[in-house]
């Protein structure tokens, strides 16, 4: 194998943190190479340097034998390096071909481009109609737009950042087939993920990053997922545990909940019915954008619904706003930490006040009790091991994982009867994720009805008693989580969206 890209001693420091410390590795032509590491291990910084978004402080790269130092992404693209980002940069109101044309320096006439898109999509088994409006596409289809946008440049190296987080298991299978075909044609793929099973199925080699350094490399097929996890984290992980408690009475009952979407490209909730018992965890899976945010809003009270659509112990509460719901111990933690669950520029004390004022008695006759709010913030920081100099620090100064622990801890410590969380461990490192999951399990054990909305199936299988999936605003009927196969879960999530016709031309 000849090395396509060689990276030697790349270093990049940000104020207060060395994101990459003398990172060296190489990628061969036609190789699927995994970059494995926890959040914050430096994967993103590394690929941003390769893609020209960030300039390294030191070190050099060689691409096909010549020095390679892209000063901007267009230079990287010209050199044959393409990247599919985790977050898509697409315009909802434009169609597929228009979106792709926007990303090109010299777009061909629309008709020629549409033909090219069709050709590439057929060759690689990524069905996509160039004339469709991006706003109408599923997350999986949007990703195909991004991939095709890259493939049109005929890249030598394709970087994929967490590509499967928005896909159903069936869609993952199709993506992998495409990637394998690309690799067989000689395109190298740099695959970033922290999902170990995927890396074991797909990748030829893995480079493992921890705290900005390359700590190991291996052939992932020869390692077990547990071994890979330990390499990644650098310590033994303990799986969350729970004592078997039999669920109590039904606490929260949702029946025929419908909620029209607030914006033209949002998802409307349709006829959602389920119930959760005391001490039970209901896992709600589904691909992003299938109504997760809307379901959380309907349960938290941000989007009031028909009174009878949501009942707490038989009492209709659907029309109550967030504050009255908090008063009766129905609490929630949204997905978006900065700007939704917490105000970025406010201190942790102020952010404690944000949801805990009512239940923790942090205000009297409207006047705020700052010492009490500070004490509550400190209690959350202490109990959930939030790493911060103190409660006076702004929420945005915390790392994602630490802020997430704060956001979850803030709700857990308010003794909820019902707790709804959306993506509780998104972007959180493995040990923090484990402690958040443990906290949710402990909470359920103490008799709270917990609803965990997540796109991480492994997480849901680990902690939920029952599992249901959101698909285009509908919820499948919940089934006991134990014994569900990946195949069944995939079908509950809607299978491969419009992919029945998909095939990879061999």
């Amino acid at each position, binding site marked *: 194998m000849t090395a396509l890209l060689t990276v030697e001693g790349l270093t990049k420091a940000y104020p207060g943190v060395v994101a990459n410390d003398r990172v060296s590795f190489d990628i061969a032509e036609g190789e699927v190479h995994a970059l494995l590491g926890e959040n914050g291990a430096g994967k993103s910084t590394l690929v941003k340097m390769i893609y020209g978004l960030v300039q390294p402080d030191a070190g050099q790269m060689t691409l096909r034998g010549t020095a390679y*130092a892209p000063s901007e992404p267009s230079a990287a693209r010209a050199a044959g390096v393409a990247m599919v980002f985790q977050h898509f940069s697409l315009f909802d109101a434009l169609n597929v071909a228009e979106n792709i044309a926007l990303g090109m320096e010299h777009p061909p006439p629309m008709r020629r481009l549409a033909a090219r898109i069709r050709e590439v999509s057929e060759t690689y088994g990524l069905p996509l109609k160039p004339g469709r409006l991006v706003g109408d596409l599923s997350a999986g289809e949007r990703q195909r737009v991004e991939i095709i946008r890259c493939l049109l440049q005929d890249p030598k190296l394709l970087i994929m950042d967490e590509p499967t987080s928005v896909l159903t298991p069936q869609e993952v299978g199709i993506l992998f087939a495409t990637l394998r075909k690309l690799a067989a044609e000689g395109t190298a793929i740099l695959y970033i993920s922290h999902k170990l099973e995927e890396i074991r199925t797909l990748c030829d080699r893995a480079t493992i990053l921890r705290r900005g350094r390359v700590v190991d490399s291996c052939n992932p097929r020869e390692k077990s997922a547990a071994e890979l996890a330990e390499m990644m984290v650098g310590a033994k992980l303990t799986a969350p545990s729970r004592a078997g408690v039999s669920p109590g009475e039904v606490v929260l009952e949702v029946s025929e909940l419908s909620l029209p979407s607030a914006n033209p490209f949002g998802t409307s909730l349709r006829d959602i019915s389920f119930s959760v018992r005391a001490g039970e965890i209901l896992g709600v899976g589904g691909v992003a954008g299938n109504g997760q945010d809307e379901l959380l809003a309907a349960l938290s*009270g941000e989007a009031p619904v028909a009174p009878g659509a949501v009942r707490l112990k038989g009492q209709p509460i659907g029309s109550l706003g967030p504050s009255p719901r908090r008063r009766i111990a129905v609490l929630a933690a949204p997905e978006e930490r900065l*700007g*939704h*669950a917490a*105000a970025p520029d*406010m201190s942790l004390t102020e952010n404690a006040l944000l949801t805990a004022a009512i239940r923790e008695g942090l205000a009297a006759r409207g006047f705020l009790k700052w010492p009490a709010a500070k004490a509550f913030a400190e209690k959350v920081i202490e109990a959930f091991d939030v790493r911060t100099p103190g409660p006076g620090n702004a929420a*945005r*100064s915390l790392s994602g994982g630490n802020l997430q622990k704060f956001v979850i801890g803030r709700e857990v410590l308010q003794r909820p009867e019902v707790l709804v969380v959306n993506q509780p461990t998104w972007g959180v490192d493995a040990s923090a994720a484990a402690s958040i999951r443990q906290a949710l399990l402990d909470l359920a054990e103490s008799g709270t009805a917990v609803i965990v909305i997540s796109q991480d199936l492994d997480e849901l299988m680990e902690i939920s008693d029952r599992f249901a999936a959101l698909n285009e605003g509908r919820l499948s009927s919940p089934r006991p989580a134990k014994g569900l196969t990946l195949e069944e879960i995939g079908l509950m999530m809607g299978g491969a969206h419009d992919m029945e016709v998909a095939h990879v031309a061999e």
Partner: protein
Amino acid sequence: MIRLEKRPQPSRAWTVAAPLLAVALTMVAGGLMFALLGKNPVDAIRTIFWDPLFNQQFASYSRPQLLVKAGPLILIAIGLSLGFRAGIWNIGAEGQYIMGALAGAGVALALYPLDTWILFPLMVLAGALGGWAWAMIPALLKTRFRTNEILVSLLLVYVAQQVLASMSLGLMRNPEGGGFPGSRNLQQYPAAANPELFEGTGMHWGVVAAFIAVIAAYVLLNRHMLGFQIRLTGQSPRAARFAGVDTNALVLFCLGTSGALAGLAGLFEVSGPAGQVNIDFNVGYGFTAIIVAFLGRLHPVGILLAGLLMALTYIGGELAQFMLGIPAAAIQAFQGMLLFFLLGVDVLSNYNIRLGRREIA
């Protein structure tokens, strides 16, 4: 190459130092401008910043003017700052100022020549109500029909000006005024007058109200749930909805309060320094207060200082025109520089500046 790096949190030291640096920069740049105009820059700066307060000859006139001019600016800016903090943009304080003055003066003129102590409190109430009602128009339109409060409140300024003209020429015209436009002089109607409370200070009830508003706003923003909700809504609207803030109620409160305070400022002005309702009664306090609010970083104490500083540049500017023959446009440019530097230097409290070339490995 200069790069800006966002600080993890705003720097406290810079928040305090930035305005001082801005004033210093304004003096340097303004001095340069005055020098180019052929004036002695040191003289010009001294005339603007020093003489109004400490020059033997002028201070006796200028010093009281400081409070007279700063009072309405502060009172209006405090009200505006509440809304601005929440992302609710009342641009029509000038109109609410006029309507407050008309409502308050209207009460006095209707009851003329009734002589009772209760008259002035009644006028105060009417003034606040007048401004409040005028601000409720954009508030209700916004909560009901999602209209843009910036446009509605701004356009209502021009309506208010027409009402003012009509009142000074018609209904409120002084019957004993020999046909001149303008109402009776309230300064000469003791029960309705808002006199200088202490000789030679410029202190009148409007200035007292401004100081009370500063304290009340400080308490509201720092110690009260409503103030917390205002700040939260401005910083993070989605988090505010999650926290259970009633956005419509907040719009009504913020627009209503800023309208009432602008109305009060108008009432105190018409019954005090201005004395009468007239076509040219409003001199732009409502618009200048927007600048004052931002100069003061929407912070009550900051607004207090910004109002005084703004008033000083007005008074000093007039003095410089009069004494040194500096053109009015140069004075305005000087005031513009002050605003420019204050807002420009503000970057320092949120960003680090890094000098040096970006290294490319």
